[in-house]
């Protein structure tokens, strides 16, 4: 066990080194386009890994993640907006806000903390629900956030574009947070908290019988995932520098859920794999949308085709690889996860082994 742990530590350190090297290369030598894609990868990883904690490991099927992303984005952006722009774009901002311009990290954390507090309050009620009910309720949360964003003109400029956000986001910020998110979720999953979450996911009644507080486990997962979603939101906002509430709605939600499912719920490395796979595929498809010239054959531009193809791929993935690309297991790291047996049983229950479909 000790040697396994040591060799795994080595593997992790090695991959971190490779990551840093790769980021250096991208940062110094790659085109703006590639940088953008790599940035997007990192942000998505933060979103999907933290979502996995809630959906995959705790079994709470939440559709509200992007709502917290929006909270993080807008909060941080309002805080970092230069004062001069504030008076122009957000003239009715309350005085104390109008005179503040916060540094990036502080603003990001402020947004994340706000999101976590909201998650806690909202979660007190939502985390009592299960299955489809929590899905609708969290979707409701997403809609509520959207409605508030669109209508609270004073703070958010409503449906109009919120622009002028200082471009603080760099590759290093994004991937630093991505590594941190992955680490935190990984440690959490491996801890007693994580075991409780998985117990709640697998069998709520049994977990309660064993003295596990279902509410507490779910609430913890909900808050942690909200925290990191908000971080991702802030990073996103300070990269794209202008956005509107529409960016944080259904399309984005489907996008991260696709990555989550294709990567495999309940597998952290699966989430990363899923993000990479879906992002790269989407990029390829999106480029193809503009039309492909194969010399002898020209495929005309078909805008929207990438979405169509992605949805088809999604359905195929669910049919043929319902447990995700990694089959719900972790890459390497899997050996160390103590909850592995439980997960295997959960998977078997979920897919039903030899059950013939009705």
């Amino acid at each position, binding site marked *: 066990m000790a040697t396994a742990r040591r060799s795994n530590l080595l593997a992790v350190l090695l991959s971190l080194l490779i990551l840093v090297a790769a980021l250096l290369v991208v940062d110094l030598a790659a085109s703006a386009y590639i940088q953008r894609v790599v940035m997007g990868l990192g942000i998505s990883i933060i979103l999907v890994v933290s979502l996995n904690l809630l*959906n995959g490991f705790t079994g709470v*099927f939440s559709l509200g993640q992007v709502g917290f992303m929006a909270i993080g984005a807008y909060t941080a952006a309002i805080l970092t907006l230069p004062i001069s722009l504030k008076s122009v774009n957000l003239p009715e901002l309350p005085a104390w806000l109008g005179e503040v311009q916060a540094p990036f990290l502080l603003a990001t954390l402020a947004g994340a903390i706000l999101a976590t507090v909201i998650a806690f309050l909202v979660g007190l*009620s*939502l985390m*009592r*629900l*299960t*299955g*489809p*009910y929590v*899905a*609708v*309720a969290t*979707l*409701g*949360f997403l*809609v*509520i956030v959207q*409605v*508030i964003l*669109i*209508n609270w003109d004073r703070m958010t400029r409503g449906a109009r574009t919120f622009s002028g956000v200082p471009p603080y986001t760099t590759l290093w910020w994004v991937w630093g947070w991505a590594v941190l998110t992955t680490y935190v979720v990984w440690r959490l999953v491996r801890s007693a908290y994580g075991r409780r979450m998985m117990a709640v996911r697998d*069998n*709520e*009644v049994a977990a309660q019988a064993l003295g596990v507080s279902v509410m507490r486990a779910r609430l913890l997962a909900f808050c942690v995932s909200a925290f990191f979603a908000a971080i991702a939101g802030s990073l996103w906002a300070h990269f794209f520098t202008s956005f509107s509430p529409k960016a944080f709605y*259904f399309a984005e939600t*489907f996008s991260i*859920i*696709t990555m989550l*499912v294709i990567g495999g*719920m309940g597998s952290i490395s699966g989430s990363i794999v899923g993000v990479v796979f879906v992002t790269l595929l989407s990029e390829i498809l999106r480029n193809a949308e503009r039309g492909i010239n194969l010399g002898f054959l020209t495929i005309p531009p*078909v*805008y*929207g*085709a990438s*979405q*169509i193809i*992605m*949805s*088809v791929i*999604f*359905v195929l993935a*669910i*049919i043929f690889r*319902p447990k995700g690309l990694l089959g719900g297991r972790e890459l390497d790291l899997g050996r160390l996860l103590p909850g592995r047996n439980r997960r295997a049983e959960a998977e078997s229950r*979920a*897919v*039903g082994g030899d*059950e013939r*479909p*009705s």
Partner: protein
Amino acid sequence: MNTIQTLIQQTINAVSIGSLYALMAIGLAMVFGILRLINFAHGDLIMVGSYAALLSLVLGAPFWAAGLIGIAASTIVGLAMERVAYRPIRGAPEVAMLLTSFAVTIFLENIAILIFSPTPRAFPTPPILSGALEFGGLRISAVDVLAILVAAVVLVLLTFFIRRSEAGVGMRAASQDLLAARLMGININRVIVMAFAIGSALAGVVGILWSIRVGKIDPLMGFYPVLKAFVASVIGGLGSLPGAVLGGYVLGFLEILLQGLLPSSLTPYRDAFVFIILIVLLLFRPNGILGSTEKEKI
């Protein structure tokens, strides 16, 4: 108009919109009851029906024919959905099924955008329906009357079907205990197909009525209706047909109530309030108004 008149007027509005929600919620509830599938793509069936009807109108068909074509189109697409996307994943965890319905939604919406462009198109009102009944200071649009009448007829027919016919009882059995139904030799495929057919046809009906009411259609028109239908279903108790109907009307009344009671500064937040009320309701009755108060049996 005095208060009584306003009250009656708004009640009629509520019943009218509630009827549409109820019809949609029935479709959702039927499918959920048996398959435990939340079919988000149900909303796009409204869109499909509306565009099919519009197409027929443009091609010169009389309104009644266009309406029927619209309903037929919704039904066909709904059945195709079941066969292609949902049947292969039967038995998958609920999560997977819900996500698949998202994927189907995105698929249909983008295809529609591709074919019809995202710009909204006007949907004409047939001459017989452009009028309104006026009496005692009240004005009830013909469309509202139609919506209420259609809902009433559908509800009566469905009740007969569900309670008396062999197929209907089979459906109820399947939605109560799918395994036991299979063990009794009930043809589950046929039951599911029927549920989809009825639900999709109803979505087509709602589509036509909705399009006349709103006056225009666009590829994303199904999103809000299905969300509302979903809320209605949850309010009444997911999977229960009477619950769906009840939820539909409750939602209709809720919306009109909020519209009336909220100060004008807050009316844009109406939908947010609806969801807040929903969440509060779920706290006290996690399975909806008509759902059991027991926690789900494992």
